[in-house]
């Protein structure tokens, strides 16, 4: 064939010789932004990270990513007050992703499937004492064990779990779930000594030859208040009531039980009483919206027939009855007495006014600072005495299981560093993936999946778990509602929308790269990235 006509006819695809990248004044760059859920998680879970695997149905991988931060997902999926969901960007679109329910699904799935933690191949030769087998202690033990340290837990009580067992009723956390997750930690080679109260930390460490200690004894001593009371009055504290629920001898509270307080513990006690056939009345000095208990718990309690007297204080407790005074809120929202009184039948009064810490084991340890009844710790969770770290309810913090688990993780990292003679520096936080950074158009409309609730009769009469779990289908659905804020989920948008084919798709799991030879810097990829994982950076011209 004769040669093709000069200039008029061109070879295909030859424009590659024209590097249009030189036109650019700003370049797009990929970045990971911090998803608000991760940011809000007290346990520091990589929520978006594990949801990513759950979305593809790889639940084991999702669970494994999850337990890198938190060894108790089945517990967490039940008792965590999920601040992650409050922060979830999807809440601004329709409703927050049911992170907690997916977490529970993964935790339950792990128990069902018998997934185990990987035992580290090499030991460090160091020994760490953990005092207290509550969430914080278990968490620390788990993380330390994973790092290769020899861990021994000394627990004063008869069973592991701490407040998870003795503070949270069964209907919220079935004990077999708790047992399974505790056992999985022990399977890592962690030694658990029950009924072993550490009287002196100094002594225990020396006796056991421990290189470091993590104290997580919790707060078990119910706070008392001064209520003028007759001899016949029956006043007990909430922690004792809940703890005795775990033993053989159930508490004797009578039929009419007044629970004094407005926190989650008060609700737990009232609902427990209801299940035992009693008639609980919660007395709280402020209003419902001022109550520290979570509103959904109040709502569930009310559904179950728990009575609540708002704006009331107990003035006097006598035999079979109490006197309450009505309160009103002042301008600043504080309750003030009104002088109006009322008498209520009460076989017993349960005080749910918070807990104090038993710090006796620290007696004689030099350098410790105790303030407001709790041990002060440095940012690395170490007390004033080198090698002794502390966390959970015994240090200044919000007293939740999740916070405690987070303390355990954090302390473990610092203990590990301390044992190695180094400092642990946590990675700098990425910038936050705010809703404004997203392009929500690309997400399908999908409302949150509602978890099944136990029927009301059984909720009032049994300790069966109230909140059901998700099955696989709706757990998957829920996982897939995740917007993957700030983190590429390989939706191919940047790859597709580039008018200049300047995005290179690297293949599954490998993400994308910009081809700056051709990228003209139009910014469409940034505008159309659903999850805000690209930003424009000015070129240095």
């Amino acid at each position, binding site marked *: 064939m004769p040669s093709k006509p000069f*200039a*008029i006819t*061109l*070879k*295909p*695809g*030859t*424009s*590659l*010789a*024209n*590097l*249009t990248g030189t*036109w650019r004044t700003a370049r797009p760059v990929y970045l990971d932004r911090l998803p608000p859920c991760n940011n809000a998680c007290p346990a520091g879970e990589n929520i978006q990270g594990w949801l990513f695997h759950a*979305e*593809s149905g790889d639940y084991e991988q999702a669970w494994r990513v999850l337990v890198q931060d938190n060894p108790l997902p089945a517990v967490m999926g039940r008792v965590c007050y999920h601040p992650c969901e409050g922060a979830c960007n999807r809440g601004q679109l329709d409703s927050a992703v049911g992170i907690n329910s997916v977490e529970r699904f993964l935790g339950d799935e792990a128990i069902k499937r018998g997934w185990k933690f990987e035992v580290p191949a090499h030991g460090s030769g160091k020994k760490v004492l953990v005092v207290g087998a509550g969430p914080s202690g278990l968490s620390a033990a788990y993380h330390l064990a994973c790092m290769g340290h020899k861990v021994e837990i000394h627990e004063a009580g008869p069973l592991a779990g701490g407040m998870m067992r003795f503070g949270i009723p069964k209907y919220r956390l079935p004990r077999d779930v708790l047992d399974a997750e505790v056992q999985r930690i022990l399977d890592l080679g962690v030694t658990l000594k029950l009924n072993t109260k550490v009287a002196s930390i100094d002594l225990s460490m020396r006796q056991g030859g421990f290189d470091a200690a993590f104290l997580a004894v919790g707060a078990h001593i119910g706070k008392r208040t001064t209520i003028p009371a007759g001899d016949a009055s029956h006043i007990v504290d909430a922690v004792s009531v809940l703890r005795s629920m775990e033993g053989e001898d159930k508490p004797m509270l009578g039929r009419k039980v007044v629970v004094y307080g407005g926190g989650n513990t008060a609700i737990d006690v009232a609902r427990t009483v209801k299940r035992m056939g009693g008639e609980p009345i919660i007395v709280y000095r402020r209003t419902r919206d001022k109550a520290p208990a979570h509103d959904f718990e109040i709502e569930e309690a009310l559904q179950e027939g728990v009575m609540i007297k708002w704006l009331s204080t107990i003035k006097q407790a006598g035999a079979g009855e109490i006197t309450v005074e009505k309160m009103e809120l002042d301008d600043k929202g504080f309750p003030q007495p009104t002088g109006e009184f009322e008498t209520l039948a009460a076989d017993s009064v349960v005080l749910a006014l918070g807990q104090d810490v038993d710090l006796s084991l620290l007696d004689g340890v030099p350098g410790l600072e105790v303030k407001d009844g709790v041990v002060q710790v440095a940012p690395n969770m170490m007390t004033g005495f080198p090698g002794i770290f502390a966390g959970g309810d015994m240090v200044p913090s919000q007293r939740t299981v999740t916070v405690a688990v987070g303390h355990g993780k954090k302390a473990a990292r610092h203990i590990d560093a301390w044992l190695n003679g180094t400092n642990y520096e946590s990675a700098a936080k990425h910038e936050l993936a705010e809703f404004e950074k997203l392009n929500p*158009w*690309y*997400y*399908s*409309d*999908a409302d949150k999946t509602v978890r099944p609730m136990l029927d009301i009769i059984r909720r009032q009469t049994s300790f069966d778990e109230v909140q059901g779990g998700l099955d696989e289908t709706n757990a998957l*659905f829920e996982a*897939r*509602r*995740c*917007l*993957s804020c700030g983190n590429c*989920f*390989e*939706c*191919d*948008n940047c*790859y*597709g*929308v*580039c*008018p*200049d*084919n*300047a995005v290179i*798709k690297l*293949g*599954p799991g490998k993400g994308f790269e910009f*081809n700056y*030879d*051709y990228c*003209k*810097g*139009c*910014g*469409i990829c*940034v*505008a*159309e990235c*659903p999850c805000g994982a690209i930003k424009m950076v000015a070129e240095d011209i």
Partner: protein
Amino acid sequence: MSFQPVKFYQTGTYTVGNRLLAPDERSVQANQMRGNSINSGHRACQGCGEALGARYAIDAAMVESNGQLIAANATGCLEVFSTPYPESSWQVPWIHSLFGNTAAVATGIAAAMKAKGRHEVRVVAQGGDGGTTDIGFGCLSGMFERNDDVLYICYDNEGYMNTGVQRSSATPPAARTATTMPVGPEPGNVFGQGKNVPEIAMAHGIPYVATATVADLRDLEYKVRKAMRMHGARYIQIFVPCPLGWGTASHDTIRIARLAKESGMFPVFEAEHGEVTSVLKIRNKVAIGEYLKPQKRFAHLFGKHAHPETVARLQAIADRNIRKYGLLEEETD
């Protein structure tokens, strides 16, 4: 919906790809090995909607024809930015003849293939709105009327952009162009009767007519691929914002296209043999102002010397589209 919605996934069917979709449900553009019918190095402006729309469409047509595709191209931006001597961006056999004859050139190619018995080779003609709705209209209508085996794709950016943003018969009322300046008592383009070429195409009774936007890739690909499975004259008009001509930010190209559809200004539908068979519903209806305001070509309608009555007339056009095509979900229920 113009396609069966895929099983729910994180991003449904809106993103280009989705790692969770089965391979046969994935878009052509999501494919790591996609053809890139228009190669990198083309000279389109930053954020060019036409470059994007053309790659979307031709890549899809290439896949559906198993690579047996020939494209004819009208004079215009697409032609100029893709084939300045000595470099071509096209990876498909491609010809540019004139501004107004693309449909006829494509007819000729199709006739040649038929005469040669090469029935597997398919033909696409493409041009901008000027080359389609104005100067190429005669050839287009002839191609429709004979039902020649050509898919004609019009990349509608509502004006003559190649020559410096002049008005075409696809330019919307009130828009500023170089020949409809925002001066005098009725600034911008006239409120004419419009020229709805998709409907004119439908009036020819051809097998397939569709509209699409670069904001909805999956719908666009579905339509191109469906059209490619059919024979006879087919017409697809793709809405492609022009950052330069419309005075929009280069990163807003897709957003503007989305707003055009969501406001009802650009109805997205398909029709077979002259009858509308489906419309793409508005998902989040927006007032016309939301579509107009990011565009400098409508800037004279807002601000100090605003023309609210003109905005209202434009809203009325959008409302008429919504009524006529049943673009809102409840209206057709």
